[in-house]
């Protein structure tokens, strides 16, 4: 974390245990400042996805506290959770797309929940879909797209409402080298616009020559590389 910066994501002594005796996270402390771009790595099953899920309150920690943008997550009521999730754009490992809907409809979902007007919504969706290089397939059903294209739809949906925090769980897992570089370039661009980004990946090549902070999750503990 850059000294003196207010962390946008903060974990204090966070524990996550599953019955009977599986320790996913063991008293993890972590702070990510505003505008930071962080890689979270570790072997499969190390708890990367669990950590991300706790950041958008899809899962609860067993102990400790998580603070997002100054808000302690355990203090949120059920009705406040949607507000948190609007601040955190998530790119899921399994995309979580509606396959029988079009690219436009999938991306628009993040804006529909905000109650945006039709023309405003359409303009924003076109702009973002254009940004991920899918404007020619705007009205194609997602099921008709390749894995890489579906991944880009998932990215477009995560960023279309301009969230200040973007979490990506293996965002390049289904992509070839060229597409992987494109996705990273897109993330760089979003980061340059001010978004704080955390990418969970087990693909070392993504961060081998990076100047970004890289965190490794191993045996429930986080270590900085």
């Amino acid at each position: 974390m850059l000294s003196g910066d207010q962390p946008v994501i903060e974990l204090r002594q966070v524990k996550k245990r599953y019955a009977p005796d599986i320790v996913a996270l063991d008293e993890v402390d972590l702070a990510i400042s505003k505008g930071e771009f962080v890689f979270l790595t570790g072997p499969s099953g190390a708890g990367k996805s669990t950590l991300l899920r706790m950041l958008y309150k899809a899962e609860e920690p067993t102990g400790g506290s998580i603070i997002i943008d100054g808000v302690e997550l355990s203090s949120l009521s059920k009705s406040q959770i949607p507000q948190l999730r609007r601040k955190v754009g998530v790119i899921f490992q399994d995309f979580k797309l509606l396959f029988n809907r079009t690219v436009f409809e999938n991306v628009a979902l993040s804006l529909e929940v905000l109650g945006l007007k039709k023309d405003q919504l359409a303009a924003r969706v076109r702009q973002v879909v254009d940004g991920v290089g899918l404007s020619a397939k705007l009205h194609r059903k997602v099921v008709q797209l390749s894995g890489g294209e579906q991944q880009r739809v998932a990215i477009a949906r995560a960023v279309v409402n301009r969230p200040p925090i973007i979490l990506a769980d293996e965002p390049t897992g289904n992509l070839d080298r060229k597409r992987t570089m494109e996705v990273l370039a897109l993330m760089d661009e979003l980061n340059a616009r001010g978004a704080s980004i955390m990418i969970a990946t087990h693909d070392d090549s993504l961060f081998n020559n990076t100047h970004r902070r890289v965190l490794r999750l191993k045996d429930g503990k986080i270590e900085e590389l």
Partner: protein
Amino acid sequence: MPLGIIFKRALRDMRQNLVTHVMTTIVVALTCLVFIFFSVFSLNLQRIADRFGKELAIVVYLKKDLPQEKIPSLYQKVVAMEGIESVRFVSSEEAFKRLEHYFKNEKEVLEGVDPLFLPPSFEIQIDRAFYNPGRVRSIAERLSKWPEVQKVQYGKEWVDRLESFSKAVQAAVAASAILLLVTAAFVVSNTIKLTVYARQDEIEIMRLVGATNGFIQGPFLLASFLQGVGGSLAAIVTGFFCYEYVVNIITQTELVKSLNLQFLSPAHMLTIVLVSGVFCMAGTAMALRRFLTL
């Protein structure tokens, strides 16, 4: 969330699951039709009861030896009773004249009969606004306890039967109303539950991108309201045509024609539509509450 978006999404959902929604609406319509049948039957039975009941008179036969001078005070006492529209005194002589008129072709039947052998009486008409079978019986019972009274006659059996039948029909209407509400709410909420099951993935995604429960539930609630309203409207239209058909057949006779049968009033129809819609929506809201946890 703006109402326009809820409408748009609800209509899209209904279009995508058209068969399920149409079948549910038909079940709601059939349920409403049962209720409408009992309602129309009860309403017209009540009208018939009112019509005949209002024409019922109570005849109070006085004791033959009652002194003539007591009759005016007794008359005043009857007139002062609650629910009496008019009272007519029929003397023994007038009663005999009526008998003579009845036997005008066989006058010899009454030859040698004492013209005063019939008791004097009061013919009492019940106030139409006050009328109901229970009240007629209550007045008759009170009058029969008076010492000057020999006998009280009114269409007791008829009134009693009408009253018990009317109560049975009203109970059937109430039971069918409960049946309507519970069945419609149950059917609609189960349809919505199936739709929710089928769309678990979509609901999960909506939750993850920050949709509120209102955003997720709104279209489901609106769809169930529309099913309740659509089903009850279909039932009213079907019920009306069935009613017209039956009335056309049975009003061939003058007696039935004079009954002036009626279908449900606009207020009654509006109530059925709204209650059906609201109950279907409430059933769905309860079903969704268990499914849509964040």
